[in-house]
């Protein structure tokens, strides 16, 4: 039996406000609350809430046979909590149906996996805890920012206890192979890979309302027909897309919601089911290894990292940001950690891409800036202020290692004091009389001191 594996991405960055260089050192709040709230509430009303309701109804009417997965970035959760808490509530409702899986990712929707393993693991743990608290699920499947994946990353992810990873079915990786199978990592046969079916996913996400597309209009019956006509052995159809596809990227008027509503009915008629990623992974055996030596992603024609780290400006900003990673982690300042998360969000680097000069459409659509240079200037101003704050915590003249050992000493001192106190208490309990003796002795010493004066 064929099965459709839906996974929807939900992410919204904290867009930065216009931050001039003379604000450096004077203003430590970086975010454009107005625009963030406006965008989030619009998307919530147009997309998240109606789509959630439809999915909830479909799960109810199919008695749990319709199943989907969501990956919600930590920064998106933070923003939803602030500006549209009703969305979180409706996700909790979905979680209770038991037909919805929540995936694991980096809290900040960051590119940390490429550069800083420690940071990456920190963020995954942070996100994991958040999902557990909100939805009562322990995520079993991992999805990296923008589906970035490579063999080495796979190892890192496996070491954190995940057995399933979602990745891009890039042509460069798959070659002649079909994405409609479960594969495993070339380095580790226990790590299963679910690869995005590019064609069918993008038919919905990008081409659905395109009048120039030869298959327009796309209806559920035709779509399910295509799936049914895939070769018999191909069991899994991985449809991965941005959740905003429903109602925002493809507006309500395009009929996208009706398409979603009709999909399960036609699927069940043709004997096609729905599964979440972890179910697919536990039910379907891996057919073979897939080797991904260089990181791939689901963005642009190249399906690589060039959208975020393609030019010198992006690299500069990225390297400067992670140059203070170690120090931020040493700090205990909560506000600093919060900003650290929000500044790592990959979108900031996406806005700096100069690829928009040749194929601008999507970049311009998503970017709040008029040009990549403006994006860079603004981000670097904010980053300068942030780095000054980090350096204010610890003098920059002290090297990281030295600082670390100093901090360890300080921390150890605390431990030692705690140890000693414990010991002291133990003695107190053991001999209440001894305790008095100590006190007497102390008093005696004090008297002596007085006399000496």
């Amino acid at each position, binding site marked *: 039996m064929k099965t459709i594996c839906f996974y929807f991405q939900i992410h919204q960055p904290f867009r930065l406000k216009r931050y*001039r*260089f*003379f604000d*450096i050192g004077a203003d430590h709040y970086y975010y454009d609350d107005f625009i963030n709230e406006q965008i989030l509430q619009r998307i919530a009303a147009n997309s998240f809430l109606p789509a959630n309701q439809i999915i909830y109804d479909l799960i109810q009417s199919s008695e749990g046979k319709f199943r989907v997965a969501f990956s919600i970035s930590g920064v998106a959760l933070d923003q939803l909590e602030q500006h549209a808490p009703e969305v979180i509530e409706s996700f909790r409702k979905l979680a209770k149906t038991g037909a919805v899986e929540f995936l694991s990712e980096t809290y900040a929707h960051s590119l940390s996996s490429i550069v800083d393993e420690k940071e990456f693991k920190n963020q995954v743990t942070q996100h994991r805890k958040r999902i557990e608290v909100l939805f009562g699920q322990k995520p079993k499947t991992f999805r990296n920012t923008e589906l970035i994946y490579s063999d080495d990353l796979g190892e890192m992810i496996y070491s954190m206890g995940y057995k399933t990873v979602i990745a891009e079915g890039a042509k460069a990786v798959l070659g002649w192979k079909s994405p409609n199978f479960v594969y495993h990592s070339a380095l580790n046969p226990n790590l299963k890979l679910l690869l995005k079916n590019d064609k069918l996913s993008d038919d919905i996400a990008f081409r659905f309302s395109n009048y120039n597309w030869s298959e327009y209009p796309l209806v559920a019956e035709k779509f399910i027909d295509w799936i049914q006509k895939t070769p018999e052995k191909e069991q899994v159809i991985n449809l991965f897309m941005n959740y905003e596809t429903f109602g925002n990227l493809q507006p309500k008027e395009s009929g996208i919601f009706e398409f979603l509503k009709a999909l399960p009915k036609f699927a069940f008629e043709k004997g096609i089911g729905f599964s979440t990623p972890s179910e697919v992974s536990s039910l379907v055996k891996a057919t073979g290894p897939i080797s991904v030596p260089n990181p791939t992603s689901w963005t642009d024609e190249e399906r690589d990292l060039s959208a975020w780290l393609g*030019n*010198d*400006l992006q*690299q*500069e900003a990225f390297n400067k940001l992670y140059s203070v990673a170690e120090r931020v982690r040493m700090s205990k300042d909560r506000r600093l950690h919060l900003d650290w998360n929000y500044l790592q969000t990959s979108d900031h680097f996406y806005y700096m891409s*100069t690829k928009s*000069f040749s194929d601008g459409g999507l970049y311009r659509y998503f970017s709040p800036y*008029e*040009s990549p*240079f*403006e994006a*860079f*200037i*603004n981000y*670097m*101003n904010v980053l300068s202020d942030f780095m000054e704050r980090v350096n204010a915590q610890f003098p920059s003249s002290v090297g990281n290692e030295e600082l670390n050992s100093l901090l360890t000493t300080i921390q150890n001192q605390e431990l030692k004091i705690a140890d000693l106190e414990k010991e002291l208490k133990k003695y107190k309990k053991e001999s209440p009389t001894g305790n008095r003796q100590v006190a007497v002795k102390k008093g005696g010493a004090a008297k002596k001191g007085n006399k000496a004066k």
Partner: protein
Amino acid sequence: MRALMFGWEFPPHILGGLGTASYGLTKGMAMQEDMDLVFVIPKPHGDEDQSFVKIIGACNTPVVWRDVSWEHLESRFGSYMSPQDYYNMRDHIYADFRYLYTNDLGCIEFSGRYPDNLMEEINNYSICAGVIARTEQHDIIHSHDWLTYSAGIHAKNISGKPLVIHVHATDFDRSRGNVNPQVYGIEKNGMDHADHIICVSNLTRETVISKYHQDPRKVSAVHNAVEPVSKTIEEIQPERHTNQKIVTFLGRITMQKGPEYFVEAASRVLQKTSGVRFVMAGSGDMMEDMIKLVAKRGIADKFHFPGFLKGNQVYRMLKSSDVYVMPSVSEPFGISPLEAMQVGVPSIISKQSGCAEILNYAIKTDYWDIDAMADAIYSIITNPAMHEFLKIQGKNEVDEIKWEYAGKKVRAIYDRLLGIK
């Protein structure tokens, strides 16, 4: 195809951007093998490059018949004009112009500049254009800027060939809206008679459509380009005696160029950073005001006025700069940032300049947005990555903006007017 072009300036003796653009365009068009160009200017100096274009001086065009010997003409013209051309034109004098002051050859004298009796010179130029249009066979007429529109109309009336006028600037750009009615009249008349109007940017195109009430269908934009830098310019060494950063403004210090915004942006940058100096090169009617403003902001120790720069001094200044700023309030095209980028200087330009339409690797701000301008300056001088990126990518970009391509666009317009293809 043969085009008869009317212009006012041609290098090496130029007074503004018009001459540079005329030269570049004709050179770019001459690359097309079947393109023949005749370029008329009021007064050639004799050292113009005639390898790709035939230059006729209005001051060498007879309007009154005089009996002159071949030898005398040869001694007068030297090698840049053949006496035969003179005789051909003398055969086409079409009216009695003896009431005009003419010299021994029967020619009217021109200053070739922008004299006080400009209107009179424009009129004389048209008279000569009548003779030239009768003499020189041509398929199309092309007039550069308002000074030559009347000549173009006159030529069109004679030969009946289509007239293309090339708008390098309008009086709205020069005067920030306070147009001179006489100039406006000439401009409007030229546009009304033109079969097609070529503007140097979409910005200018919009002005032509909305302020001169032209039919959008006959107005197109063909952006200017730049000549590749010559060897001598490439060899100029930058002069750096300090390791302080240098931010440069270069141009006429007039209302149109927005110098006050540059000063204000400089004062913001200097509040936050030391190790940077600002230079305002050029001269103009707002220079004194700018010196006063600099003093008022208390930044005179870091702000310099080297005056008007000539020839290679311009490139020496550019090459010594870290940032080039053009905050023009209204700029039909604006060639200078392209020249700065050619020698690897990152540029900040106002969105109100025509060149902003074709440049990607330059930072664009509104001319009035001094905060954004200051921010951009700060970013380039404090961020080596930004400087390097704009330097390399900017140069690559400008090297691809060639007159050859602009020439092809103009040619396509000719072809359309003549019903070819």
